[in-house]
């Protein structure tokens, strides 16, 4: 489904991502891990078109995404969440989801200005659909409150709900469990599993919590200094000497 072939991203003299190849098939849950600054988020930015890869190609089901603008890539079926939440804070929870849904519905600008019956009908459809999505994510009771007033855990859920509202084929999650307590993390992970099974989504997940990634992902890719140093199942990764070196080295640097 989603495939990166030898993708490199170069900032000046720095190879932030170096000859990286990953693939995510429909219904697959893959993890992307690595020490701080390994280039994980840069990979996400390349996939979503924020950065254009200097080398290599990114494919989604046969179409090449390299130079497409971000909003078109989204419409092709890639959605993402952000490390530090990027909700529309001053809008209601309902509006956050509606905005994500809107691209699937069309009426003319004139319909919008005059609020014609056609516009009203479509707006009703959007609202019904938004409520059903909120219901799915357990947010209906908060529909009318502002996004910024939600507890942090629910904000994470809202961001996933918003990403799902664009009906993606591939979902990119950037540290979904960061800042959550154990119980919240567990419920979130369960949800990610369910989403994958229900919608046959391909999910690529960045996470720092090793235990968590090991428990949930089928394939794990380890990045260090932009290079892929290992790929495989959780047990393979745990026993890989290069991975251990990368993480221990990282730890030493922190201590030093």
């Amino acid at each position, binding site marked *: 489904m989603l495939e990166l072939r030898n993708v490199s991203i170069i900032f000046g003299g720095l190879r932030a991502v170096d000859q990286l190849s990953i693939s995510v098939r429909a219904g697959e849950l893959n993890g992307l891990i690595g020490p701080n600054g390994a280039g994980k988020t840069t990979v996400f930015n390349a996939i979503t078109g924020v950065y254009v890869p200097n080398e290599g190609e990114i494919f989604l089901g046969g179409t090449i995404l390299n130079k497409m603008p971000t909003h078109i890539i989204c419409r092709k079926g890639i959605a993402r969440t952000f490390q530090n939440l990027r909700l529309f804070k001053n809008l209601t929870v309902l*509006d956050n989801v509606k905005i994500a849904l809107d691209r699937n519905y069309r009426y003319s600008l004139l319909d919008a*200005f005059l*609020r014609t*019956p056609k*516009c009203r009908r479509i707006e009703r459809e959007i609202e019904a659909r938004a409520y059903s999505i909120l219901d799915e994510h357990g947010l209906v009771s908060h529909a009318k409150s502002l996004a910024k007033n939600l507890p942090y855990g629910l904000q994470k859920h809202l961001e996933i709900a918003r990403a799902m509202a664009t009906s993606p084929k591939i979902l990119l999650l950037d540290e979904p469990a960061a800042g959550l307590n154990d119980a919240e993390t567990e419920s979130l992970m369960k949800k990610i599993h369910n989403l994958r099974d229900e919608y046959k989504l391909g999910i690529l997940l960045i996470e720092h919590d090793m235990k968590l990634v090991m428990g949930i992902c089928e394939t794990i890719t380890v990045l260090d200094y932009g290079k892929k140093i290992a790929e495989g199942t959780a047990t393979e990764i745990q026993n890989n000497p290069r991975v251990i070196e990368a993480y221990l080295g990282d730890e030493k640097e922190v201590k030093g």
Partner: protein
Amino acid sequence: MINEYIETIIILIMINSIFALSLNLIIGFNGQFSLGHAAFLAIGAYASAIVVAAYNFPFLIGLFVAGVMAAVLGLVIGVPTLRLRGDYLAIATLGFAEITKMVLLIMPEKIFGGATGIPGGAKEIDKVPQLSDLLRMPGAIAPEFAGKLPSQCTGAAPVNINQTMNLIFCFVWIIATLIVVGYGFYALYRWLKGTVERRISGKKWVLWSLRLVYWGGLIVLAVTNTKRINDSFYGVFGVHRSHTWNSYLSTQWTVFLFLIVAVLLITWLCVNYLRSTYGRAVIAIREDEIASTMLGIGEFKFKLMNFLVGTFFAGVAGGLLAHSIPSFNPFEFDLLKSVDALLMVVLGGMGSITGTFFGATVLTILPEALRQSKEWRMVIYSLTLVLLMIFKPKGFFGSSEFSPKIPDFLRRLMDNRRGAKGASDA
């Protein structure tokens, strides 16, 4: 008759409301900082004045052309500048506005009037027809006879009074005032009541005095209007005729009514627009550009579309302005005019339509009210603004709206209608 000075201020409040609202669409709702909005007002004013005065098109077509021409200029300015962000955008729009001013200055003098403006040096235009000329109803008396009894009207007869028109117009006027003033009054009451209940819940007497004022006001409104209806019958039957014409048919009030309807109509359009998929995309861009592109919103497309909508309404405001002031020239539409609109938006609250009206009203009245203080006028004016910004940094309304509840019985009516439609859809 309200005296002409006050009349002009009231007219300017309404035109400024439209102008500031159009800027709020761009700054408050889309987060794009434009500092050249006066250019679109200028284009609108020139377009409407020329189309109506030099080419004798109907006034409403003039207004439409004004909007369209402003949007065309918006396209020319928006395409290169809207790719910029923040301060850069502000400077670029400012530059383009100055260019627009200079271009108006060097346009053919016969029509555009050069530095003296319209009608100033424009030979093709004797006078831009004013709203009071354009909106004179059949049966309206000439201004010089206003307030006089027929016996006092020496010389020519006022005009031929069309009695049927008189009666119809009286009724339309009365019903319109009842709806507009009555609803506004009701809305204000609900809002105040809500605030009172939230803030000072313990004090019953506040609520009671509020109720007293509300019901008292409604009764006064009803009684005075009944009196007017009676008067208009007298008018029809030949008693106190001039009194009737004076009260209802004076063109001044027609102008006010026209402008109120224009403001309400444009507000309605804007509210609809902001509640649509288009409006939501525009607001999403303000909230977070990166997140909105990740949700499939073509950032540039929506910024440009919203800019064009904003400039269109600025053009309409310009068109109305051209027919409300006796003359104008390119120098009036300078940076200060843009800043005026910006102040109205900031004072009222970015992203609040109610706030825009509030800002436009206060900032139109304030400089006039301070006229007595002579040379201290601008000092006090500026000081007021500084103090307001210190104590109300988000403007008076923030991004919230004063949106009153629709009366229950009306809501029920609307729901029924909607329900019936929904059923037929299914």
